[in-house]
């Protein structure tokens, strides 16, 4: 796993330090770059369209510490020469020749780990499914590029049995493939790329795809794009019309699917297990150019997959529903020693995430971490901190960032209960509840969110508000106020961070069976009465018996669906609806004093 602290230090690494050589094959000369120790397992990175090997610079830098990283410019791209004539020079068979020529040069007697993005993945599917490369490829990680053969079968299956859903899938992908049709027109694409499009492309990438600038795209872009059009013209029609019937992968495959890919539908990979048994699926909330926008995540998944293949592919520990999405991600949960926080930590652990369980009670935090490891977290740590203590939180953030990395998901869950009329609530009571429920969230968002945003590779912040955020009650003035503040804070933060690919969700649970009742403060009553009310409310919550595990599920769903406000439990959903359509009724309910 890549520690992000180290990743950052390498972030400015380009391919400048790479050893370069030129390899002649089939009438062209390929430019091959190598990084890292040649004794280590070899990883070959294949770029897509319209790119050159520099698209991998961020990922290659992160992998070079542990692997022998090899990149090459596909024929006609970057500093490799183009075939003459262009037509017929880019067939998959010729691309396979190139690949084998590179392998012969860089790793003649050891199989390599192959990684492809976009067209690099399309051609890598060819490499990994044809007979003559058998034994040369140890594993294949595919990012945003289906096999043309599988794609052909996918289309055929949908044309032959056009159920409404299948027609929808067909039309959906058909619309996303608009650029493929454009590329099939003669001359025009070349003119566009060498003219205005080539000039504007970096800005388009930055604006539409949120690809950060820098050393990419390179100066060769317009000729890469013009030559690369032949990749489509030489292969797409031929393969889609007559897909090979035997395109089975002869190496383990990891599929990384960006959910926001504008060019490829997620549905394309339905049933891929038929061609690649034991497929490892990964999804991430990002657009098409993940090697540029999410290098940390991509590099760590590549590394993890290679390690598992080299280690004989042990059974995956994490079997949860969302393992494809959260595997290897770093998740921090506050208040993880009990209740919703603990259940959330377990749910993320089951999905294979690395979990930091924070609680002010060291023992229960450690317990959560221990059980998290049991249910599937590759790593889990218990940390002690009081979220209301600014210095403690700063220390915690410093430690987490230094030792574990930048968070992918932050769950600000810690909270305390306070009940009692407004005039019975002392200023001390107010301070305490606001310190934990509101300031705790502020500290979390400020300290961990800042680093998330700085890293610029997305993430998600979940704040646990409450149904009390929109359901007024005379019994919970301070608590409801703090939770309403959390809800609004989340909404504002969401607006601010959405441009950076960081989602913010507010979860609003109703009555959930946790121990918040037995630690809640009841203002304005003596100690025995407080004890009695705690006990009675605990029994009441026990009778309601809504399990915190269901809230945890809602939290994972909120992260995956990037939902803004999620009321959980029927009463919370009811109150949420009423706050919009029947606020008067809610106000009348608010006047009722619950008897405990």
């Amino acid at each position: 796993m890549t520690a992000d602290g180290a990743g950052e230090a390498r972030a400015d690494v380009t391919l400048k330090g790479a050893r370069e050589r030129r390899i002649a094959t089939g009438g062209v000369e390929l430019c091959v770059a190598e990084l890292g120790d040649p004794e280590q397992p070899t990883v070959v990175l294949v770029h897509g369209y319209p790119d050159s090997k520099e698209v991998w610079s961020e990922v290659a830098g992160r992998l070079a510490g542990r692997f022998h990283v090899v990149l090459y410019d596909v024929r006609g791209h970057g500093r490799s020469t183009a075939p003459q004539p262009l037509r017929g020079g880019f067939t998959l068979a010729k691309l396979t020749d190139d690949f084998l020529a590179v392998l012969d040069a860089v790793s003649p007697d050891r199989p390599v780990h192959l990684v492809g993005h976009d067209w690099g993945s399309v051609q890598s599917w060819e490499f990994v499914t044809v007979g003559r490369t058998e034994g040369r490829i140890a594993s294949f990680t595919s990012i945003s590029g289906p096999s043309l053969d599988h794609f052909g079968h996918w289309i055929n299956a949908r044309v032959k049995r056009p159920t409404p859903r299948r027609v929808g899938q067909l039309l959906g992908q058909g619309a996303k493939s608009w650029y493929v049709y454009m590329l099939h027109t003669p001359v025009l694409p070349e003119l566009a790329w060498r003219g205005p499009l080539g000039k504007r492309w970096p800005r388009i990438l930055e604006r539409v795809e949120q690809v950060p600038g820098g050393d990419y795209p390179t100066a060769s872009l317009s000729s890469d794009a013009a030559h690369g059009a032949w990749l489509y013209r030489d292969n797409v029609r031929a393969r889609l019309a007559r897909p090979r019937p035997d395109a089975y992968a002869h190496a383990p495959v990891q599929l990384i699917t960006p959910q926001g890919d504008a060019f490829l539908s997620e549905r394309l990979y339905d049933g891929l297990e038929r061609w690649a048994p034991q497929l490892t699926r990964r999804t991430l909330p990002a657009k098409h150019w993940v090697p540029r926008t999410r290098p940390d995540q991509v590099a760590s998944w590549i590394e993890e997959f290679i390690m598992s293949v080299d280690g004989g592919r042990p059974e995956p520990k994490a079997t949860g529903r969302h393992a494809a999405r959260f595997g290897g991600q770093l998740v921090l949960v506050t208040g993880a020693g009990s209740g919703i926080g603990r259940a959330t930590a377990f749910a993320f652990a089951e999905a294979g995430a690395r979990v930091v369980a924070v609680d002010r009670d060291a023992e229960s935090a450690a317990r959560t971490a221990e059980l998290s490891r049991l249910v599937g977290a590759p790593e889990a740590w218990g940390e002690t901190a009081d979220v209301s203590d600014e210095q403690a939180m700063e220390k915690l953030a410093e430690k987490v960032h230094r030792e574990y990395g930048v968070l992918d998901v932050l769950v600000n869950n810690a909270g305390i209960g306070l009940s009692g009329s407004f005039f019975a609530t002392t200023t001390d009571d107010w301070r305490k509840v606001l310190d934990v429920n509101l300031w705790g969230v502020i500290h979390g968002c400020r300290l961990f969110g800042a680093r998330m945003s700085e890293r610029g590779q997305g993430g998600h912040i979940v704040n646990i508000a409450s149904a009390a955020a929109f359901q007024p009650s005379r019994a919970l003035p301070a608590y409801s106020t703090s939770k309403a503040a959390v809800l609004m804070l989340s909404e504002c933060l969401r607006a601010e961070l959405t441009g950076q690919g960081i989602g913010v969700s507010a979860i609003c649970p109703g009555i959930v069976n946790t121990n918040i009742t037995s630690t809640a403060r009841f203002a304005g009553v003596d100690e025995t009465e407080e004890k009695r009310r705690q006990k009675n409310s605990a029994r009441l919550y026990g009778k309601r018996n809504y399990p915190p595990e269901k809230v945890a599920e809602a939290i994972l769903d909120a992260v995956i669906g990037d939902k803004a406000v999620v009321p959980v439990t029927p009463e919370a959903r009811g109150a949420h609806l009423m706050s919009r359509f029947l606020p008067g009724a809610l106000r009348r309910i608010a006047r009722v004093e619950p008897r405990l």
Partner: protein
Amino acid sequence: MTTAVSSELSVELRGFRRVQRLAYECAEAVAARLEPGVTEREAARMQREWLRERGVRDWFHLPFAWFGDRTAFVNFRVPFQFFPTDRALAPGMPFILDMAPVYEGYTADIGYSGSLGVNPVQDRLMADLEAHRELILREVRERRPLREIYEDVDRLMVRQGYANRHRAYPFGVIAHKVDRVKQRRFSPHLFGFGTQSLKGLAADALHGHREGWSPLWSPYRFSDHPPQPGLWAVEPHLGFRGTGAKFEEILVVTDSRDPEQSAFWLDDDLPHVRRWAEEK
């Protein structure tokens, strides 16, 4: 753990101990014969046949077997879901065998947890059950109301990070009374429960209702009374993310003033107790 010395065991307790041992032997024998592909129904039948061969004719309840996430009663809504299904055992899967044979008029009710191969989660659950066995005995000796003991067990489970799964049993009981049963030539059963035993339980319930106690140890108000002398089959059941573990054995409660004698586990030589001792 302290228990009454065996010499002091009355004839009656010895009878209960004999059948409890027999039941645990059965559980161990059947568990050893479980293999991939065996279904819950088959496992239940194996327990039944094993015990019938050794002279068991009546049941408090027929043997149950739960495999996989059914050990944690995931999505159990109606009592019929407790009955064995066609779920097949696979490597690594946890299982629970639960049986309550009547032998020579004495009743046992036991629960045995295990897994096919290694299951670290269930191992952890089983290890953590030890604290519950200690807690229950301690608080029964303190003559705390059963309802409060129930809540303390609940709190301990939550602190450990687990869910209370005995809540899923009928009336949410953590324990119920067991007693001697008259041997009859016919021993019909109703929904898996022996009619003789049900009769005994109903008589207790009626009796207890008049005196303010209940043969069912539940989280409800009718259990808000100190432990009633007699034999209680105690079955704390932990659940954690689709894996469950329990033990079930008889706790003897007497009206002795000596705390040691006022409550003790019928037998300390049981598989789960031996396991805890070995791990130390």
